[in-house]
């Protein structure tokens, strides 16, 4: 490769252009992350439970979503889900009926070590619950109740049959109750952690494409600056088809 003014100029141009592509790609990459964070932040803000899910169904973004519910625990008997460990200790999960604006919600209050635990007592009067929504364990929907009356899984069918009312299509897993009870079941961790947010494919693709274009700049540099030069002597014999060629 012969070092000349043209080669130097084109090399500087290639550096500048590929740097611009890298900057643009990096910017699209940070846009991708910002959009994801904004979507997650929007979902991390608790909303009233009936805005997140209803009896008829729920949007995909409501799974794992933090919600609040203000209402009363209903009169139907609480249900126990058998054989649920907490930190290795055997026990049961407690499912209680909670009514908000006349709609019944299955609330997973937490874990108790025995079916006679005093923490099973539900508070009287209006309370505000904070927690997150989780799907029912409907893969066990057809399992009959155990002989002792406890549930095998958090089955929506079994719960609705036991309480005689339809329930909201997601379970509220209790995290906080206001006012607090003196003795309450221990909160259980969420099975499905994060809500489903749409991934910004377009920005992620632009990120990649800008990096591809940065590489193309150097492909072009190699072809036009490095490879073209040795043939220059030969191609001079045939007049260039390009009147505005930078070679001139």
């Amino acid at each position, binding site marked *: 490769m012969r070092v000349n003014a043209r080669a130097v100029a*084109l090399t500087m*141009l290639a550096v500048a252009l590929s740097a611009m592509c890298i900057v643009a790609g990096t910017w699209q990459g940070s846009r991708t992350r910002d959009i994801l964070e904004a979507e997650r932040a929007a979902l991390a803000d608790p909303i009233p439970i009936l805005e997140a899910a209803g009896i008829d169904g729920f949007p995909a973004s409501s799974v794992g979503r933090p919600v609040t519910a203000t209402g009363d625990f209903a009169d139907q008997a609480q249900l126990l889900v058998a054989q649920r460990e907490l930190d290795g200790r055997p026990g049961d999960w407690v499912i209680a009926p909670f009514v908000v604006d006349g709609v019944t919600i299955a609330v997973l209050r937490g874990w108790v070590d025995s079916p006679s635990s005093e923490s099973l007592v539900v508070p009287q009067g209006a309370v505000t619950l904070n927690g997150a929504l989780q799907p029912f364990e409907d893969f066990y929907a057809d399992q009959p109740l155990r002989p002792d009356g406890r549930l095998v899984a958090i089955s929506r069918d079994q719960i609705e049959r036991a309480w005689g009312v339809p329930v909201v299509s997601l379970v509220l897993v209790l995290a906080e109750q206001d006012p607090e009870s003196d003795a309450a079941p221990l909160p259980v961790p969420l099975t499905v952690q994060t809500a489903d947010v749409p991934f910004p*494919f*377009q920005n992620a*693709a*632009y990120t990649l*494409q800008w990096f*591809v*274009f940065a590489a*193309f700049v150097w*492909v*072009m540099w190699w*072809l*036009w600056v490095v*490879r*073209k030069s040795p043939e220059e002597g030969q*191609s001079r014999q045939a007049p*260039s*088809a*390009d009147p*505005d*060629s*930078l*070679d001139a």
Partner: protein
Amino acid sequence: MKGLHGALVRFRIMAWVTGVLLAIMSVVFLPLKYAFGLTEQGILATVYAVGWQAHGWLYVLYVAAGLDISFRMRFSVVRTVAVLLAGTIPFASFFADHYVAKTVDARLATQA
């Protein structure tokens, strides 16, 4: 000029595919989005997003084909960059296609 014909065919295919998609996206879907707001949800939202996605990746192929034919034709840097950028401007790739095809055909004719 071995391979010049194949390079031209590849470039012409990419110029037309990229150009037609970009024309549809800008003439049909940009008004749908910005004048009528019809691409917020449903099937149109999906078509809109997939359309621009596809154009992004097709343009990458267009640039590759454009670099190939431009180097084989020993186009100048300015001319090459003009051909490559034509894939981002609605309808410009049809003019780039016409120009490149005419130039290549003339070159092939003088060598025949």
